């Protein structure tokens, strides 16, 4: 990966962040209503509203608000949440780690299951196994997260059986078992689509690799089938799979929004919805930018992994 490539990528990310921040600011100011109104709710008499707007600095011109915000960000200060009156960095920071924990559990779980599953399907290509795994994964990709989540809740969090908690969060430092227990359903929900997608991708890549000339050559060298798959076929099908996984991070980060909302997981997704509903501009900004950065970084990491897996890949 050349330096120029890296710098270009970095530049693109920064440009995107700038555009996103301006866009979010513009969008939120064009929208009807503001944080003051949302805070006061039924207490929003004109007098109270004006007082609250003054308190929150919303009576300033938009440009001033934006420049003020940008100035803060450049100093590492993301401002104060309008609705929660806490430093944005603090709120978002906590939510970020909770989200990342959930995403990581989902991603690791998925990878561990999906890659062998896809491999198995590719090896059993054309059999009933392949068809079965294929159909399951098709169904998996056709279920939106909120449907999966709801169905999982009906089955596993039924108040009579209560196999798993229906939602909520336990800090891992307090009770790790509880943390995992609470994470199972949300991460399973997140994982289902990914699993379907990744296993399908691994299957198709691997089937293609298995018919390649070099796999044929390996077999005709008398390399045992196990090694052919492990050493010759899989590494070549993993690079494209990683590319897909990196794109799936996008789904994952989007899925988090829904899943966290349903399972009451205190992460970025829920924070974002809350902030959107309450016009909490600094929080919307921070969450959006953070998600975009995470997406960009994971994509970059994926590129590095791909370059590692496939010596041919040299980003220029």
């Amino acid at each position: 990966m050349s330096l120029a490539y890296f710098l270009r990528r970095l530049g693109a990310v920064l440009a995107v962040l700038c555009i996103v921040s301006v866009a979010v600011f513009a969008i939120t100011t064009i929208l009807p209503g503001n944080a003051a109104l949302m805070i006061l709710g039924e207490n929003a008499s004109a007098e109270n509203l004006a007082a609250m707007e003054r308190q929150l600095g919303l009576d300033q011109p938009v440009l001033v608000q934006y420049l003020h915000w940008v100035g803060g960000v450049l100093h590492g200060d993301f401002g104060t949440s309008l609705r929660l009156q806490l430093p944005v960095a603090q709120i978002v920071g906590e939510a970020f780690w909770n989200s990342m924990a959930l995403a990581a559990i989902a991603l690791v779980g998925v990878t561990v299951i999906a890659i062998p599953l896809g491999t198995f399907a590719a090896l059993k290509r054309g059999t009933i196994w392949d068809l079965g795994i294929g159909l399951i994964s098709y169904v998996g990709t056709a279920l939106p997260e909120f449907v999966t989540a709801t169905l999982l809740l009906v089955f596993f969090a039924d108040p009579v059986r209560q196999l798993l908690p229906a939602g909520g969060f336990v800090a891992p430092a307090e009770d790790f078992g509880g943390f995992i227990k609470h994470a199972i359903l949300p991460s399973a929900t997140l994982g289902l689509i990914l699993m379907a997608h990744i296993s399908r991708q691994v299957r198709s890549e691997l089937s293609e690799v298995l018919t390649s000339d070099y796999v044929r050559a390996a077999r005709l060298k008398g390399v045992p089938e196990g090694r052919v798959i492990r050493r010759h076929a899989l590494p070549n099908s993993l690079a494209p799979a990683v590319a897909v996984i990196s794109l799936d991070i996008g789904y994952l980060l989007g899925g988090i929004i829904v899943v966290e909302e349903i399972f009451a997981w205190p992460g970025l997704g829920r924070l974002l919805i809350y902030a959107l509903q309450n016009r909490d501009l600094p929080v919307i900004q921070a969450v959006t930018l953070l998600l975009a950065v995470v997406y960009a970084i994971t994509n970059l990491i994926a590129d590095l992994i791909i370059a590692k897996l496939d010596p041919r890949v040299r980003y220029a």
Partner: protein
Amino acid sequence: MSHFTLSRRHVLMGLAASTALPGMSFAQGATPVSGGTLKISHSTRIATLNVLSLSGPAEYPCIDMLYSGLTRTGLDNQPHPDLATEWSANDDATEFTFILREGVTFHDGTPFTADDVVATYEAILNPDIPSAARSVLKMVEKVEAVDDLTVKFTLSAPFADLPYSTAHANARIVSRAALDGDLTKLDTTANGTGPFKLETYDSARMVRLVKNENYYKPGQPYLDAVEMMLFPDLAAETANFLSGATDVMLTVQQADFQRISDSAGVDAQQVGSGRYVCVVMRQDQEPWNDVRVRKAFGMAVDRELLVDVILEGLGRPAYDSIVAPELEYATDKPVIPYDPEAARALLAEAGYPDGLKVTLVASDRPAIRAQTAIAIQQTAGAAGFDVEIKTMPHDTYLAEEWMKGDFYIGYWGMQPTIDATYNLLLTSDASYQDTEWKNAEFDALVAEGRSTVDPEKRAEIYAKAQALELDESPYIVPFYEDVLTASRETTVDWHIAPISRFFFIEDVWMNKA
């Protein structure tokens, strides 16, 4: 001291008479046990602890635990002594004197004095500070400290219900130090005189409060700590409650009430309340300026059906008055039967023989607004009202429709008095005059009622005002919604006042034996 006799002596002239109030223990005979942590689940975020302006359903129990007011509304819907042990008014109810409790300290150990009361009320009345209680205290002209434990309120107009107003959930006493400092600190910190102290404030998950050892009620609170746990997903909240992970469900949804109350080890409570959904019709505009159209629409609403279907029976039909039967001086309202034929006839009489096409706006939060709209659409169809429903996100609703639109669904909590109820919405200078229904006679009656001390006279006056309201039907009020809450049987003395802003958690104890 008062110079006249009153049946409601304790309102105008309060005494710290009964420490048993408001706790009307259901675990008769059992002696409260100290200790334990009470876990209360709720589904809306505790976004702020700013006692002056907050309005969230889960924020009220927090400030009820953290702060005390001069007076406090009990389960009987009457003001009771809190930081004021007694009070009295002059003859025409323009001057009130509150005697404060001795030896009370704030959580940080500083003593509570009359000066804090003065500072708090000055803040509430300051138009530069957003405060929710200002609307019920507008008549207060001056608050002064007579001595360290005596405060005198001077009013610009007679107001017999002042002790109700001082019990307003947002009129809790904050220390002068806090009010002189950075007001935004009130959002995330609390230095009150209430039974519990703030330990951690994590608006995303949990607010944890711990026992205030120096609370003025001896031996109370019984609990060591209270955790307010956030479950934005109702299904998750219910499941956690039923599994015993939480002790109290602050609010139970109608849909789940039956199931929860049927569950073993659970005590579900249904508290009759004056919370209502209403249909707002702007009366300076066609067609709602015609009382016949409003009346016709009233007859086109099948209230029994709405109570059954939307409230799951957990409420009572209302007949177009915003005055709940719980309130003092409330009159019995005549039943308005569902009568689409009569409605159609009346509509025809008003000049709409072919019916009327209208667009009813509802916000999407809480869901009951849209649900009511949909149900009304169903029942009103037969009466010739072709109702189209426009549901919109709450933020858009607040910004564009609320107080502006001509036909939308409103949703209001219960107020402590008729005066507060009418002054909130219906008088010409009401805080949230959203109907443009302005009636001088009605205004005069409300003003007269407010300054009248004699209860019989007041009853008479308020009866007239309510009759006027019914005659004119400024709002369609289809039902009153019960307040629903649930606790595990091991949680003793969990109560919610009908007004649903007072909780008396200092009386709660855990019977885990």
